[in-house]
């Protein structure tokens, strides 16, 4: 559960700004966050709002893999929002979450191309994972998004609004994902960020992502 008690007071009067830190030393590349996201959000085949990139480093006998979980960074200055010609991509005023109004999306893909993190996707008319018609789960889950519109990670906004953590955070077995309010100096996220070295992905792009990595 997110501690939502008097958030305005704890955030020095500021609205919450949800963010996430990812501890790369704890991530073991198990992809359980990837699956939890799929289960929670019912994304169609081939689309992963959350995924863990991997890369081989070193050489035999010291070769090893490194992992990098990526997802929408919910940037303060998101390049995907201004390029949207319809206003379908927007920042929610109350907490700066970057969301998509699917009723307004025309599927021009400009936001996909503008995103420096490659974490936006255009869904097609899905026939489901088994290509023999949708399963009862898929029939229900696919009601959450419209075909031929852009979709992406929402930080599980429906769960946040109920005071719950995003599904990926809840499921991570190594506690590599820390979610919280960046504007609340008392939140675990703010505390850990004060204590540990961290970096923002592609900070040079000037997007000020609400996501950082611990190394």
């Amino acid at each position, binding site marked *: 559960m997110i501690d939502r008690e008097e958030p305005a007071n704890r955030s020095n009067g500021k609205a919450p700004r949800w963010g996430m830190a990812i501890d790369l030393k704890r991530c073991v590349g198990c992809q359980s966050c990837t699956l939890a996201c799929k289960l929670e959000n019912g994304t169609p085949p081939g689309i992963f709002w959350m*995924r863990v*990139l991997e890369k081989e480093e070193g050489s035999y006998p010291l070769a090893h893999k490194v992992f990098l979980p990526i997802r929408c960074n919910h940037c303060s200055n998101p390049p995907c929002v201004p390029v949207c010609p319809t206003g379908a991509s927007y920042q929610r005023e109350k907490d700066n979450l970057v969301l998509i109004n699917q009723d307004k999306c025309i*599927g021009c893909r400009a936001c996909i191309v503008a995103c420096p993190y490659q974490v936006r996707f255009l869904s097609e008319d899905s026939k489901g994972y088994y290509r023999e018609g949708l399963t009862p789960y898929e029939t229900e889950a696919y009601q959450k998004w419209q075909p031929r519109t852009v979709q992406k990670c929402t930080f599980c906004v429906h769960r946040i609004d109920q005071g719950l953590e995003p599904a990926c955070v809840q499921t991570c077995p190594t506690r590599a994902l820390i979610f919280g309010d960046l504007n609340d100096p008392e939140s675990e996220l703010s505390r850990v960020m004060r204590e540990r070295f961290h970096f923002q992905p592609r900070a040079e792009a000037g997007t000020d992502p609400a996501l950082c990595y611990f190394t």
Partner: protein
Amino acid sequence: MTPEFTMQLNKQQEWSWLLAIDLFLGGLGGGLFLFYEVFELPVSIGLLSLGLVAAGGLVLLAELGHPWRAWRAICKPFSSWISRGVIFVMLFLISGSLYVAPALDLFSWLPWAPDVFGGKALGIIAGACAFLVTLYPGFVLAASPSIPFWNNPLLPVLFFSHSITGAAGILLLLSPFGFLDQKLEGINSLVALLIVVNFVLIAVYLLVVKTSGLAAAESVRHLNEGSLSWTFKVGVILVGTVFPLLVVVWMPSAVVLAGAFVLIGGLLFRYCVLKSGVYVPFALT
């Protein structure tokens, strides 16, 4: 694991032939209208330019996921270049049609002939919109910070230059019909000049962009030796640049061929620019 789960230099897969055709037709239409106004060409050229831009718009609709919502694309002109472009295209089609209409027998009764104030005003508006129609695609692409190959202020200039050259190519293609002869005596020299300018701009662009980081260098590599090298070297450089230049300079009687070459090169140029866009990769050390 699918390739999506590894860290690598990824080419953008979102925009391809349909958008290339849209940019091609829109650029041709805008450029042709500028020729129509500057050289006072026959009304059929004005109509053709309007038709090309309208056809480009229809192709763009086919590219959209939800074409029936396309009207919403005018909602964000203060931030989105696509929104601005849609407005430029609409204004061009309206003002251009009104400007051309009095020259048609059917609408000769309209009171704004090109030599009266209303006609002149419409001509200025339509000309400005035609100019912007040729320019805005470059700004749409240049507004993508994730793809350094596009994220360059020279790109709109490159698109404008190719639009004008393509429009001149259409005039060459139409030259056998005779009605352009008196109006465009120097068209061959102009086309030769435009082709050379285009070539220099492409060369400068690639040299400048190549030094803009890993992703941009990868884009240039795709054009030089990668999957797009044949399309770029044969289609854009040989067919779209060298052949028409040779024809215009040494075989003026075959300028129709040069016009066709220029158009083929112009379409493939847009395709190559779109398909060679490479995202900046995730850094993890």
